[in-house]
C-alpha cells in the first residue's frame, strides 16, 4: 500500500488542473474542516491552481469544534488560500426547533447537507468547481452523508485509502497536529470514525486493499490473519452502501436509457 508521494502528488495536481481547465474554471472551492482529508485536498489544490484560485469554506456548528476551526484557518493562511468562516448554527437550529430529534446521526447528516448547500451556493457565486474530500476508505464503507460531504464536482482523493492519505499529508507538509488527530466525521463532539466503525484504519485499509485492489477471496483474507467478524463487517458495509456510489437507478423502459445504455463520456468535447 506504499505510495510514491511525489508521483501521486503529480497525478493529483495534474488531475485538478486538467479537470478545471477542461470545464473552463479557474477556481476550486472546498470545505475545510481542519481534518486530514480536506487539508490534503486544499494543499494539492493550492499547488495545482495557485493559492489565489483556491477558496476554502470553514463551516463550524457553533463552538464545539473550535480547535478544528483554528487549525483550518491556520492552514488556509499558511497555504495562502482564500477562506471564509460561516457558522451553520442558525440554519440547523431553526430546522430542528421545528422538527426536534435526539438522534445524533440525523443532526449530523443535516449539518453535512447544510455545508453542501453553502458550498454549491459559493460555487456559483465564485465561479469555482467543488473539490471533494472523500477518501477511498470512506467511499467504500459508505462512511459519509449522501448529498452531504460526498457531494462535489470532482474528487481528487477518491482512489487513496486513509492510510495512504496520511503518507501524502506528511509529504505535503501538513502540520503534525492535523496529521495525528483522531479521524472524525465531526458530526458530534467526541465522535471518532474508528469508534463508530469499530475497527482501526490500519486494519480497515488492509482488509479493503485485499478485498478491492487484490480481489482476494474472503477465505484467504481470513486465513492471512484477519478476524472473520471484521472481514464480514467490512463486506457488509461495502454492500449496503453501493447506493451512495451510484446515480439513482432508473427502470429501463425505452431502447436507450440513462444509466443503462446511454453511454456518453463525461469529458465529451474537452
Amino acid at each position: 500500500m506504499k505510495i510514491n508521494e511525489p508521483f501521486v502528488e503529480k497525478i493529483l495536481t495534474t488531475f485538478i488542473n486538467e479537470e478545471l481547465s477542461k470545464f473552463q474554471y479557474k477556481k476550486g472551492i472546498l470545505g475545510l474542516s481542519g481534518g486530514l482529508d480536506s487539508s490534503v485536498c486544499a494543499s494539492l489544490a493550492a499547488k495545482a491552481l495557485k493559492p489565489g484560485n483556491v477558496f476554502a469554506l470553514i463551516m463550524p456548528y457553533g463552538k464545539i469544534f473550535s480547535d478544528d476551526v483554528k487549525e483550518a484557518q491556520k492552514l488556509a493562511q499558511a497555504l495562502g488560500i482564500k477562506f471564509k468562516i460561516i457558522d451553520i448554527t442558525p440554519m440547523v437550529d431553526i430546522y430542528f426547533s421545528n422538527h426536534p430529534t435526539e438522534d445524533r446521526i440525523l443532526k449530523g447528516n443535516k449539518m453535512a447537507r447544510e455545508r453542501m448547500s453553502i458550498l454549491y451556493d459559493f460555487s456559483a457565486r465564485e465561479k469555482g468547481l467543488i473539490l471533494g474530500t472523500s477518501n477511498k476508505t470512506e467511499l467504500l464503507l459508505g462512511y459519509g452523508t449522501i448529498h452531504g460531504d460526498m457531494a462535489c464536482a470532482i474528487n481528487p482523493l477518491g482512489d487513496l485509502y486513509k492510510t495512504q492519505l496520511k503518507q501524502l499529508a506528511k509529504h505535503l507538509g501538513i502540520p503534525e497536529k492535523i496529521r495525528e488527530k483522531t479521524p472524525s466525521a465531526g458530526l458530534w463532539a467526541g465522535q471518532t470514525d474508528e469508534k463508530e466503525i469499530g475497527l482501526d484504519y490500519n486494519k480497515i485499509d488492509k482488509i479493503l486493499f485485499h478485498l478491492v485492489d487484490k480481489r482476494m477471496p474472503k477465505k484467504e483474507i481470513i486465513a492471512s490473519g484477519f478476524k472473520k467478524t471484521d472481514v464480514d463487517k467490512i463486506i457488509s458495509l461495502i454492500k449496503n452502501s453501493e447506493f451512495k456510489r451510484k446515480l439513482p437507478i432508473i427502470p429501463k423502459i425505452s431502447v436507450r436509457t440513462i444509466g443503462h445504455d446511454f453511454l456518453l463520456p463525461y469529458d465529451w468535447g474537452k
Partner: protein
Amino acid sequence: MKVALAQISPHLGDLEKNFELHIKYIKKAKKKNVDLLIFPELSLTGYTLKDLVEEVALPLETNTFINQLKTASCDLSLVFGFVEEKERGLYYNSAAFLAEGKILHVHRKVFLPTFGMFEEGKFYAQGKNFHTFSTPFGNAGMMICRDFLSYGACYLLFAGDSEIIIVISAAPGRGITGKESYETSRMWESMGETISRFSNAFLIYCNRVGFEDGKHFAGGSFIYSPLGQLVAKASYLDKDFLIQEINLNDIREARKKWPYKRDDKPEVILEALKRIIKNYED
C-alpha cells in the same frame, strides 16, 4: 532516419480540434526534418468515446481530414489513429500509415480489451490480421495498444519480416507502488525490450497523456533498438515531442549477432498451432 513521437492529449470526440493538433505537430516535425511522425491510438478522436464512436467514424477514402493528412505525407510519413467505418455500421479502432501522399496500410485493432475499465468490444468491430508492409524505410508492421501485449501477434510481425514495429497506444496508467511511475508503464517497457530484442526489429511505442473521465494516460513513449537497447524515452504523464535519429543498419547488426530471423521456423509453429487448435475443438 529521423523518427518523432507526438505524445499528445487529444480532445475527446472533437475531430476538428484534433486535426488541427495533428497539423501543428506535422509542421513542427517538418521543421526538424523528421522522416516518420507517429501519433498515439485514436489520436484524431480521443479514446473514451463510448456512444460517440459512430459520430466520429471516418470512411478511409473520402474523408477530408484523411485526404489532407495524405497530402501532408508527401513531405513526411505519418502514423495516426482514428475510428474507421470500413463497412456500413461497422466501426474499427484503426491505425493508418501514410507516405508519399498515399495510404500504405491500415491496421485494425484485433485485441479489443473488454474487461475491468475497458469496454472496446462493446463499441468496435474486430480487426483480423497482422500485416507486414513495405515503407520508404523498410518493412514495417503496426499494432494498437493491447495488440502488442499478445506475443502471438508480435510473432506474426516477426514472421512477416517487419523491421520496424510501430505500436500506437492509449494506455491508462494504473497501480501505484513505491516507484515514480505506474506499474503498467513497466509492463509496456518490458514488452518493448523483449520484442525488439527477439524480433531484431526497432520497436516504436507511442502512448498518449492526459485524463479522460478520470483515466490517466501514462505517456512514457519509447524506442528500442533491434538489440533490445532503449534508444529514447518520453516523459511519463506530461505532453512530449520525442525526436530520435535511428540507424536502420542496426537491424543488420542485430541479425548478424543473433540470427533469430534466419533460424525461425514458422512452418513448425504453424503445424503445431494447427494441432493445438484441432485438439481443443475435439
